[in-house]
């Protein structure tokens, strides 16, 4: 059984596509699509990697990440943040919130694969 990745993203077709490529790559993928209870879901499922969108209904990805970094179980969890805005301010906010890596939409499938492999391999 491969490594477990949790994808938190609200756009169903993006969820479907990323789940597909990650599964093909040998990951076991679970998904979640809102911000409200995202922190609890991460704590319960204890994935090896989290892919987190910034714009989520209920709670922003930045806030979710900040909360996660304050809990001991998710302190060192590798987190790949996805955003539709590549602005410097967003990148800095992601770094401050504790993102391991930051990726701007629209990304290619191979970029996602490279990023997740690197994050968990290291």
């Amino acid at each position, binding site marked *: 059984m491969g490594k477990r990745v949790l994808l938190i993203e609200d*756009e169903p*077709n*993006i969820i*479907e*596509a*990323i789940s*597909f*490529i990650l599964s*093909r790559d040998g990951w076991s993928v679970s998904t979640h699509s809102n911000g409200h209870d995202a922190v609890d879901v991460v704590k319960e499922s204890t994935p090896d990697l989290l892919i987190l969108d910034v*714009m989520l209904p209920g709670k922003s990805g930045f806030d979710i990440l900040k909360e996660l970094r304050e809990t001991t179980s998710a302190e060192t969890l590798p987190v790949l943040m996805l955003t*539709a*805005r590549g*602005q410097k*301010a967003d990148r800095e906010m992601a770094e401050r919130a504790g993102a391991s890596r930051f990726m701007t*939409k*629209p*990304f*290619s*499938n*191979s970029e*996602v694969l490279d990023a997740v492999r690197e994050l968990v391999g290291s």
Partner: protein
Amino acid sequence: MSRDTLTGSRIRERRAMAGFRQADLARQVGISASYLNLIEHNRRRIGGKLLVNIATVLGVEPSLLSEGAEAALISTLREAAADSVAVQPELDRVDEFAGRFPGWAELIADGHRRIGTLERTAATLTDRLTHDPHLATSMHEMLTMVTAIRSTAGILADTKEIEPEWRNRFHRNINEDSQRLAESSQRLVEYLDGAGDAGAALTSPMEEVEMMLAAHDYRFPHLEEDGEDIDAFAAAQPQLTTQEARAAATVTLKQLRSDARKMPRPEVAKALEEVGLDPAMLAQRFRVSVAVVFRRIAVLSDDLLPEPVGIVMCDSSGTLMLRKPIEGFPLPRFSAACPKWPLFQSLTRPMRPIRRVVTATGRESKQFTCYAIAEAIGLLQFNEDPLYRAYMLVVPSDIAVQGAQEVGSTCRVCPSTDCHGRREPSILVDGI
């Protein structure tokens, strides 16, 4: 210095306004002129009966002398002083300033508030993705769709063996997402194109004039009559919100009226039938300058020619002033135009009529015949360099010409990759 110590300054100001000499006022309230002088320079406290007596003689409320300028005014002045970098005003005398020159102080405070408003507007416009929630949402929506399509398309292209179920599902997803992308991009264009624009509130007088002209399709048949009152017409136009805009509109409309008298519509129609769109011939026939012909043709083209004709005018600094845009030849609104326009070439050769066929850069690459001329404005004086205004008539051309020069609108949106005139990178070439 506390505020109530400024009563003297206010007495001095009110006395001057009332036209009293110091000695006169002093005598009427029963004190010596030198004592009043000390009071007026805030060196003696004043209150009670003397203050009431002085107020009575000066014909003002005593409170006006004792309270004076508003605290709000003082605090705005302090803010203005704090924001100033180069100048260091006498902060310790701000009360005195506000007390002695309330009008000037109001003017500074008003200017300070206005600068604040403008700075906010400028910040909003420079960083629209951050400040314009509608734009940010639309962009986010579009990028989300693009991401989904890109990822799904990548799977379909790169996955060698894919189950038919999955393949169908991904095809359906791409179809859905591309529809949503089409809709959201259309909405975005409508938004950027129309009202609700953050820039809509920030128009210059010339832009307001242009909006007013466009609202009338550049046609003002009734104003061409003698009796029509152009000032009253300008005052009634909703697009003209400032006095400056109304004044500028009046000048433009008077010019259009004078053009119309020199080249009456029926005669222009007849001339166009006989000689065609030949500005030089028309100028000769009506005995007018080429610029008059340009303006008149631009105005009448919507009715008399198969296709509307555009016109643009600039002064010697290259500032675009009169603009009548046409399809396929975009005229920039806020930024400077393309230096390759024949309009600007004409400024280097005043009074020399220029005719050039150009191709507008961009998706459609339409061709246009441009006629340009720079004419002197004002009276010609010996040993004085005249000022010029250049006009360019932009006529859609239906016969394709080989080797026509490429011209753009403005560098930011010009796709041309090999241009010596480029001032700044294009957002089309280098991406947003």
